C-alpha cells in the first residue's frame, strides 16, 4: 500500500476516535463546559495540557529549527518547558484555590475593577486568536500536502472536526479528546525517532542514542561537529548567539508560557489544589517526552542530510530529494555547473576564501525549509509508508488539540467574562451555556476564515505573543498572589509600561527600520519581553507603595488563596 492510502486510513481512524470521545463526553452545564466539571484526574489533565500546549509548530517545526540552530535550539527546549516549573510552584495551586473559571476573573477580582477585567479579556482574546490562526494554517498544510486535497478544503475539514467536538463538549469534550490526541501525537513522534536511532547508533532510546557512537566508532555529535566545521559552520554543540541574548530569549519564553491564558485555565479543571500542583508535573512529563526526543531527531536529521547531499552528484540523489524539490521546500541551484551539490556556509568569509574559492564553488547551492526535517525524516531514513502516514496524523492531532484549547479560551472570555460578568449579569445558567456554544461556534468559523485568508501580521505576531504575555500578565498574577500590598494602580501602570515598552521595541526593530547594532544590551526583539517583565515588576511594586493599600476584603482574598483547605470546586460565584 502507498503512503497516501495509509494516510487516509490512519487519519480517518484517528478522526473517528476523536468524534467518539466527544460524543461520550458531552457537556451538560456551564461548569462542565468551562472547566470540565472540575473533576479531571491529574494524569489525564496532564496529558490534555501537554496536547493543548504542543502545537503544530512544536510537532512539525521545532526539531527542524534545532537542527539548523544547533546548540542555540536550547532556547526553545528550555524556554518551553521551564515555564511549567514556574506554573507549578508560583501560579497553578493558588489560581486553583481562587476557584473561578478564567484568568480575567482573577485579575478582575484581585484588582477589584471591571476595567482591569476588560483589559485582561482583550489581551486573552488577542493572544489566543493569533495563535489559533497559525494552527488552522498547519491543518491546511498537512491536509493539502499528504491527502492531495487543496488547502481550503483541508482547513474546512479541520474546522468541521473542531467545531463538532468543541461546541458539543466544551472543556469536557476538549479535555478527553486531547488525551486521545496526545497518545496519537506522541506515538507518531517516537516511532520514527526510535527507528532512526536504532539505524544510526544501535540504541532504541533516542535521548541516549544521540550521545552514542556511529558505526565507524566516533560519537555522533563529534562527527556532526566535524561536518559542521568542514562546511564553514560553527560547531553544532557550541553557542552561536551572544550569551545575554540566549539568556533573555529563554527567559521570555519561560515567563510567557507561565502567563498564557490557555495554559493557566487547564489548572482550573482538577478537583483539588493538590491535584493542580501534581497536574503541572504530569503535564511536564508528557511534554518532556517530546521535547527531549526533538534534539535527538534534530541531530540525526542534520547528520543524515549532510551525509546524503553534501558534495554528491545531483543525478544520483535518492527519490525523496526530488519529491520535496517539487514542493519548493527544498531548492537546489547548480551555481558553478558541476552537477554536484555544494552545501556550505557562504556567509563565513574566511571559509569562503580558504576553501570555497579554491574548489571553484560559487556560493551555497542548497536551500532547505526547516519544516521538512520532521516530515521528510522517515523518508530520508527509508522507513515504511505507514510510519510516514502516522507522522501526518500526529501533526494533525497536535494542530487540532491546540486549536480547540485556544478556541475555548476565546469563547469563555466572550460568554463568561464579557457577557455574564459585564454586560448581562442576570443571565441564566442555560442562557450562558447557550452563549458559550454560540461564541465558540463563531470563533471556530472566524478562525477558519483567517486560516484560509491569513492576515499578514499573524505569522509574525505569534512569535511575539510570548514576550507580550511575559511583559503583561505574568507580574500582575504573580504579585497578585505573593504581594498583598499590590493594588489596582500598581498593576495597571505596570502592565501598561511592560506592554508598551515591549511592543514598541519589537515594532521598532521589525517595521521601524531598526538594525541589530542598535539592540539594547545586545538583546534581540525575541528576548525583550524579559526586560519588559522586569520593568513591569518594578513599576507595579513602586506605584503600589506610593498609593493606598487595596481594600481589606481583597487582602483577605489573598490570605485565603494561599491556603489549600476549602478549595471546593471551581464555581461562577
Amino acid at each position: 500500500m502507498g503512503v497516501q492510502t495509509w494516510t487516509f486510513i490512519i487519519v480517518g481512524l484517528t478522526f473517528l476516535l476523536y468524534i467518539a470521545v466527544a460524543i461520550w463526553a458531552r457537556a451538560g452545564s456551564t461548569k462542565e463546559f468551562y472547566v470540565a466539571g472540575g473533576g479531571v484526574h491529574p494524569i489525564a489533565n496532564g496529558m490534555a495540557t501537554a496536547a493543548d500546549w504542543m502545537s503544530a509548530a512544536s510537532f512539525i517545526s521545532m526539531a527542524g529549527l534545532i537542527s539548523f540552530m544547533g546548540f542555540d535550539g536550547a532556547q526553545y527546549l528550555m524556554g518551553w518547558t521551564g515555564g511549567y516549573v514556574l506554573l507549578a510552584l508560583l501560579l497553578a495551586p493558588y489560581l486553583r484555590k481562587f476557584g473561578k473559571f478564567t484568568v480575567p476573573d482573577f485579575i478582575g477580582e484581585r484588582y477589584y475593577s471591571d476595567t482591569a477585567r476588560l483589559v485582561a479579556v482583550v489581551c486573552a482574546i488577542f493572544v489566543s486568536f493569533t495563535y489559533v490562526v497559525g494552527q488552522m494554517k498547519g491543518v491546511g498544510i498537512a491536509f493539502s500536502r499528504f491527502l492531495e486535497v487543496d488547502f481550503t478544503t483541508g482547513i474546512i475539514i479541520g474546522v468541521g472536526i473542531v467545531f463538532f467536538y468543541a461546541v458539543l463538549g466544551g472543556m469536557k469534550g476538549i479535555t478527553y479528546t486531547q488525551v486521545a490526541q496526545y497518545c496519537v501525537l506522541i506515538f507518531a513522534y517516537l516511532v520514527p525517532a526510535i527507528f532512526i536511532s536504532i539505524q544510526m547508533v544501535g540504541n532504541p532510546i533516542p535521548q541516549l542514542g544521540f550521545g552514542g557512537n556511529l558505526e565507524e566508532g566516533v560519537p555522533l555529535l563529534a562527527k556532526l561537529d566535524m561536518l559542521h566545521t568542514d562546511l564553514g559552520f560553527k560547531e553544532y554543540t557550541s553557542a552561536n548567539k551572544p550569551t545575554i541574548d540566549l539568556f533573555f530569549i529563554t527567559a521570555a519564553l519561560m515567563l510567557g508560557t507561565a502567563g498564557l491564558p490557555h495554559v493557566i485555565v487547564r489548572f482550573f479543571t482538577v478537583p483539588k489544589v493538590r491535584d493542580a500542583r501534581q497536574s503541572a508535573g504530569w503535564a511536564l512529563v508528557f511534554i518532556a517526552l517530546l521535547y527531549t526526543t526533538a534534539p535527538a531527531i534534530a541531530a540525526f536529521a542534520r547528520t543524515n542530510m549532510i551525509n546524503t547531499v553534501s558534495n554528491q552528484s545531483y543525478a544520483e540523489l535518492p527519490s525523496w530529494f526530488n519529491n520535496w524539490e517539487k514542493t519548493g521546500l527544498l531548492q537546489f541551484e547548480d551555481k558553478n555547473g558541476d552537477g554536484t551539490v555544494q552545501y556550505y556556509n557562504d556567509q563565513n568569509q574566511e571559509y569562503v576564501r580558504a576553501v570555497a574559492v579554491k574548489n571553484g564553488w560559487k556560493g551555497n547551492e542548497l536551500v532547505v525549509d526547516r519544516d521538512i526535517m520532521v516530515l521528510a525524516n522517515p523518508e530520508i531514513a527509508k522507513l515504511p509508508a505507514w510510519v510516514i502516514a502516522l507522522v501526518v496524523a500526529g501533526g494533525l492531532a497536535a494542530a487540532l488539540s491546540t486549536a480547540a484549547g485556544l478556541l475555548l479560551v476565546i469563547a469563555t472570555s466572550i460568554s463568561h467574562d464579557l457577557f455574564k460578568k459585564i454586560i448581562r449579569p442576570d443571565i441564566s445558567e442555560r442562557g450562558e451555556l447557550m452563549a458559550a456554544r454560540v461564541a465558540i461556534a463563531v470563533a471556530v468559523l472566524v478562525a477558519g476564515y483567517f486560516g484560509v485568508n491569513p492576515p499578514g501580521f499573524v505569522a509574525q505576531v505569534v512569535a511575539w505573543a510570548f514576550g507580550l504575555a511575559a511583559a503583561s500578565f505574568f507580574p500582575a498574577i504573580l504579585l497578585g498572589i505573593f504581594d498583598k500590598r499590590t493594588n489596582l494602580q500598581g498593576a495597571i501602570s505596570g502592565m501598561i509600561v511592560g506592554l508598551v515598552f515591549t511592543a514598541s521595541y519589537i515594532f521598532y526593530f521589525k517595521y521601524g527600520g531598526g538594525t541589530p547594532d542598535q539592540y539594547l544590551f545586545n538583546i534581540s526583539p525575541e528576548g525583550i519581553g524579559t526586560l519588559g517583565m522586569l520593568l513591569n515588576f518594578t513599576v507595579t511594586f513602586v506605584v503600589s507603595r506610593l498609593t493606598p493599600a487595596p481594600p481589606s476584603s481583597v487582602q483577605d482574598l489573598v490570605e485565603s488563596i494561599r491556603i489549600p483547605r476549602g478549595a471546593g470546586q471551581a464555581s461562577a460565584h
Partner: protein
Amino acid sequence: MTDQDQKMQAYWRENIRYLTILLSIWFLVSYGCGILFADVLNQIQIGGFKLGFWFAQQGAIYVFVVLIFVYVSLMNRLDKKYDVDEK
C-alpha cells in the same frame, strides 16, 4: 494577632523557603549550566555528550520534572503539618 494567624504566617514562610531553594536549582541548571557556564562545561565530555550541550538540550528538562514532583511531595507534607490539607 491570633494563634491561627501566626500559624498561617509560619506556613507561608516555610512555603517561601521551599520556593527559594527549588527555584535556585531551577535557575542554576537552566540559565547556569545550560547558558552562562555552558562553554566551560563543554570542556567536559560525558559519553558522547559535551556537558554544557547536554544540560542545555536534555539535562535541564529532566531536572525541571524532578523539581515539580519534589515540590508536590514537600507541600503535601507541609499542608498536613499545618493542618491545612484538603480532606
